[in-house]
């Protein structure tokens, strides 16, 4: 078979390489910008604004942040870690078990439970009613549990795992049952190990959701001891906005913080772990999304 090669084809390929490189760089740029921004000197930022090529790189902002707000930040980091690790373990266990239950054929309530979960995806009571139920009736306020339990079961993730389970030969379960293995054993020893890619994907989704969350702190957290790192950033942005809108307020008078560079430093502190783990997890991510995207 003879293939013709056109000049235009080569041009097109070159253009594609260039365009893709540009898009990739645009995606990466803000993160690099945040990093360099946090190394800018506050006085220079106030004079000339943020720069990708500052006159001098300095760690002053980090030093300042840790000297003045070190304990606050360490505590926020601790909160974020507890919620992320605890929440992810909790969610993954609950989700995987539920997915297994609706995979087993001869379970009387399998279909009912599948619909029970599905229905929550198409109908919900709305934020307001959720908020009142969670705070007033379930008493979830100002605790680590308040930042974990509401996300305990994500139905999308549950279906993603179920799809992996469905892809396995059902005989695995039947034979194990005939050999007298209980369902916990079957799930733990046979089904889960064979669905590693799917489970890793939802571990990733849950961990990201917990780490990046500021919705639950916003709704349910008032005490400073439970502020997560994302929520600290939220509070800080709110203060900056408040000061910008009310330059003469009494708060502005005694707040002479290097707020601009601190903002970038806390941003870097918040995305640090993601950047750290990213190279290891992103390969699972592609596979997981491809499986989970259309057939949720």
């Amino acid at each position, binding site marked *: 078979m003879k293939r013709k090669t056109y000049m235009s084809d080569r041009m097109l390929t070159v253009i594609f390489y260039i*365009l893709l490189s540009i898009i990739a760089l645009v995606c990466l740029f803000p993160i690099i910008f945040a990093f360099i921004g946090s190394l800018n000197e506050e006085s220079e930022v106030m004079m000339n604004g943020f720069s990708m090529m500052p006159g001098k790189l300095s760690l002053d902002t980090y030093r300042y942040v840790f000297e003045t707000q070190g304990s606050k930040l360490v505590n926020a980091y601790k909160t974020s870690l507890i919620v992320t690790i605890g929440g992810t373990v909790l969610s993954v266990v609950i989700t995987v078990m539920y997915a297994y239950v609706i995979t087993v054929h001869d379970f009387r309530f399998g279909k009912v439970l599948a619909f029970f979960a599905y229905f*929550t995806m198409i109908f919900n009571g709305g934020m307001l009613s959720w908020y009142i139920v969670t705070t007033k009736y379930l008493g979830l306020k100002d605790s680590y549990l308040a930042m974990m339990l509401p996300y305990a079961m994500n139905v999308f993730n549950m279906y993603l795992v179920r799809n992996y389970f469905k892809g396995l030969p*059902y005989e695995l379960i039947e034979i194990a049952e005939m050999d007298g293995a209980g369902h916990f054993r079957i799930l733990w020893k046979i089904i889960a190990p064979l669905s590693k890619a799917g489970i890793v994907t939802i571990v990733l989704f849950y961990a990201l959701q917990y780490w990046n969350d500021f919705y639950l702190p916003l709704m349910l957290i008032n005490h400073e001891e439970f502020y997560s790192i994302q929520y600290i950033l939220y509070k800080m942005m709110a203060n900056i906005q408040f000061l910008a809108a009310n330059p003469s307020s009494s708060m502005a008078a005694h707040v002479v913080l290097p707020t601009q560079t601190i903002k970038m430093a806390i941003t870097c502190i918040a995305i640090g772990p993601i950047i750290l783990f990213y190279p290891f997890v992103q390969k699972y991510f592609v596979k997981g999304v491809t499986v989970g995207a259309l057939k949720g």
Partner: protein
Amino acid sequence: MKHKKSSRKSFRQQWPLYAMALPGVAALLAFSYFPMAGIILVFKQYNFKQGIFGSPWVQPIYKNFSFFFNNLSTAMRSTGLTVMYNILFFIAGTFLSVAIAIMLGEVSSKKFVKVSQSFMFLPYFISWMVIGAILNSLINSETGMLSQIVAKAGGTMPDVYALPKAWIPILVIVNTWQSCGYTSIIYYGVITGIDASLYEAARVDGATKWQCIRKITLPLLKPTIIIMFLLSVGNMLKGNLNMIIGLTNLNPVLFPTTDLIDVFVYRSGVRNGEMAFASAISLYQSVFGLILVLTSNKIAGKFDEDATLF
């Protein structure tokens, strides 16, 4: 897995299944079904002490809805903004992610594909709060880097945080930036699944790459695009509260272009405790959302049985 009918088993054999389902059922009951029951809030004269179920019924029963109709302009503004952004997000997002997927499919270096893809997914991993903080350092009129560049070029950057209109393009650009890598995975998956012999045959017939893209790749992507569109129609009335809080910190000056339904319910209901109106608009959002999802799923099912969400 093929479905096999087998005899029902006894509770003694199956108790582990009940135990396994229990925590999930509890979570769904607590955080999904209980709030659904809470919808009756809209018929109540809510006070915190007596809660949703103890508070007295409003007289007349439809009173809270009259708030809704009296403030129809606010409700309609929120609805209009929510729908408008969802449409713009879909158009911009689909255009860019299809383009990325096609280009990734055409370049031959596997290493390049991997590296550029991993850069493009990165924004999806970052919280809206962090994106908002970075955006602020780029575009705020005093210290923002872009403002400085504009100033050096002789122009003046307007204070976008006081300029509602600016946020329509900003939100569209930022949202597309955040999600295009993620969405492109779906289209890229379809493209890598296309039978290579189709391209071979076209090449033998003397087609250029550009012609192959237009005549083979795009038409084969069309069903996926349609399905994605229908699925997004189901979410037309959902606004991203996290995004608006992260990027604008609920700056009231910007409400003319950022007051999505969810934003409105949050600020009036959760923050200010004005339950009557907020509960009415919340119910309206839930009910119409349900209708949209059911309709779009049904149509999607007609296109492709496998393509419905479930």
